[in-house]
């Protein structure tokens, strides 16, 4: 077992090195001189230009630059943003909770509706319900979310005036974050609650709903389709017939007996959806001006803020690799038949 784990972990190393090389070189071929970027007009002074180039370590041979980059990373130094002059890692941690909070709520939406739709479709197999729900899922699966977000804004914000259009919380409320999750922070900050009651929590929730629906729609459709096919497979098995023959209620047979086994592939797919969620976050955060890492990366690409692009992309890609490998390991740990 242990050798199996360590073998899997060793396999990650070349991938991680490849990712770091790719981000390192991609950023270096992006047009635009980072030294000129930092200096602006002052860059026309050759002495100042050379000094800055040396300070940034850009006068060294490329392989030396790469080794320095990797070495610094192990000391927790991921570079400094050219635009804001703050360390990239600090910027990342400032924004990551916003994306994580959005993703959690989006996944909650995706799972609750996806599971219910999938179960209904499987139980009412080949009925009108089945067709309607699966058509609905296929539309959700094909949804251009950057458009879907705008449509939600047109209906709920512009048309009905129910929800705000942009941001995480009303500008009125100013407070120190503890967890970075506004839904939690607005509930545990006693000072804030004394002053404003539950208004900040409600404000944060109403800002969160539309982006979470926009981001959760594709995962919801995937989960609904997976749940249906996974459940249909399980429902034909002998032990389900036994459960039915024992006279258990249909609800108990489906939800307790069948779903428990049908869930394994569904949860695996959800774990592997991290990359899809980041893609969703990039588009959703751009539409709703959500201050997370998706919007941050798009902004830094537009500003050619190359340390941010390099390290931001590297951190996300590494997270995808590690999360996918963990899901994979966990799955094989649960299902020993898959170990080779």
């Amino acid at each position, binding site marked *: 077992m242990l050798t199996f784990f360590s073998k899997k972990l060793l396999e990650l190393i070349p991938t991680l090195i*490849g990712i770091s090389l790719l981000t390192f070189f991609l950023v270096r071929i992006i047009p635009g001189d980072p030294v000129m970027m930092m200096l602006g007009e002052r860059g026309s002074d050759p002495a100042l230009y050379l000094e800055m180039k040396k300070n940034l370590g850009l006068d060294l041979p490329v392989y030396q630059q790469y080794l320095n980059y990797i070495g610094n990373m192990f000391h927790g130094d991921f570079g400094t943003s050219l635009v804001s002059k703050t360390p990239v890692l600090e910027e990342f941690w400032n924004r990551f909770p916003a994306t994580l909070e959005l993703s959690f709520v989006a996944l909650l939406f995706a799972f609750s509706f996806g599971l219910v739709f999938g179960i209904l479709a499987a139980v009412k197999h080949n009925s009108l319900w089945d067709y309607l729900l699966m058509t609905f899922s*296929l539309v959700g699966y094909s949804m251009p979310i950057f458009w879907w977000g705008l449509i939600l804004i047109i209906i709920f914000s512009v048309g009905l005036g129910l929800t705000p259009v942009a941001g995480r919380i009303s500008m009125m409320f100013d407070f120190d974050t503890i967890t970075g999750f506004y839904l939690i922070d607005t509930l545990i900050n006693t000072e804030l609650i004394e002053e404003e009651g539950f208004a900040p929590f409600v404000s944060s929730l109403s800002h969160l709903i539309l982006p979470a629906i926009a981001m959760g729609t594709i995962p919801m459709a995937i989960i609904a389709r997976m749940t249906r096919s996974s459940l249909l497979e399980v429902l034909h098995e002998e032990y389900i017939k036994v459960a039915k023959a024992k006279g258990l209620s249909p609800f108990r047979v489906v939800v307790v007996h069948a779903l428990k086994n049908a869930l394994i592939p569904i949860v695996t797919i959800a774990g592997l959806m991290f990359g899809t969620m980041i893609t969703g976050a*990039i*588009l959703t955060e751009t539409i709703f001006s959500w201050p997370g890492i998706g919007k941050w990366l798009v902004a830094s690409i537009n500003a050619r803020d190359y340390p941010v*692009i390099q390290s931001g992309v590297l951190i996300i890609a590494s997270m995808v690799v590690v999360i996918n490998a963990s899901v994979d390991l966990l799955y094989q740990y649960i299902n020993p038949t898959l170990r080779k």
Partner: protein
Amino acid sequence: MDEKTIKRFFNNKSGIIGGGIILILVLFALFAPLLSAHSPTIINSNALTLPPFSEGHFLGTDDVGRDLWSRLLYGARLSLGIGIAVVIISSIIGTTLGLFSGYFGGKVDWAIMRITDILMAFPSILLAIVVVSVLGPGLTNAVIAVAIVAIPQYIRIVRAAAMVEKNKDYTTAAINFGAKDTRIIFKEIFPNTLAPLIVQCSLGVSDAILNVAALGFLGLGARPPLPEWGTMLSDSRAFIQSAPWMVTLPGLSILIAVLGFNLLGDGLRDALNPKLKN
């Protein structure tokens, strides 16, 4: 494709509906100049932001008076072209790498699989954005970026199929006859990997249309005044309150096209691989 497969496809509702949607889109794209009285790019200051069902402008006009119906028709040309271009580029590269990986195994397989792992570690839109920022924004570069992002899917699917075919008797026979590796790969193994490849190509078109439109939406794809649906959507964001049809129509077109290719892909999968159907 044998007769049974074709019969199964025509008995399959999603395949038929998807194929129908695509057929209509293709006809619209081909006959765009005949189907619209207006140019998709000419500005008309006498017809600014007309709502749908206005006289002479069946779907209304945009903020500079261009006919939306005509822009959507020409947009269908662009989106179908984009989808096909991306699939051709990514499937040729991905299939070749997948065949080599599956057939040779060993070090070749290891190297190609690590490249696949690396490419797959980047969330699709993120990698496309980075590639576009290297190449510079524009429709051609967006197509290249999206094609690169799609390559790993073809590698994985073709590799899996090639690994199965490699151990079959006909391959062993070809090897014993002394056939060259490239001949075995392309003449013997490749035709037998076609079934999953065709399904992936159909789904690949929908992914490509969606991703190029997303880049257009982020301002990194086609440049205005090209009537690309994602770029049109991005340009219309300022009019979300005053002219919501400008936002609604291009997105709906993207949705319909993507849905069509997803349905076709589902139908093809069920027809080509009946075992997978439940």
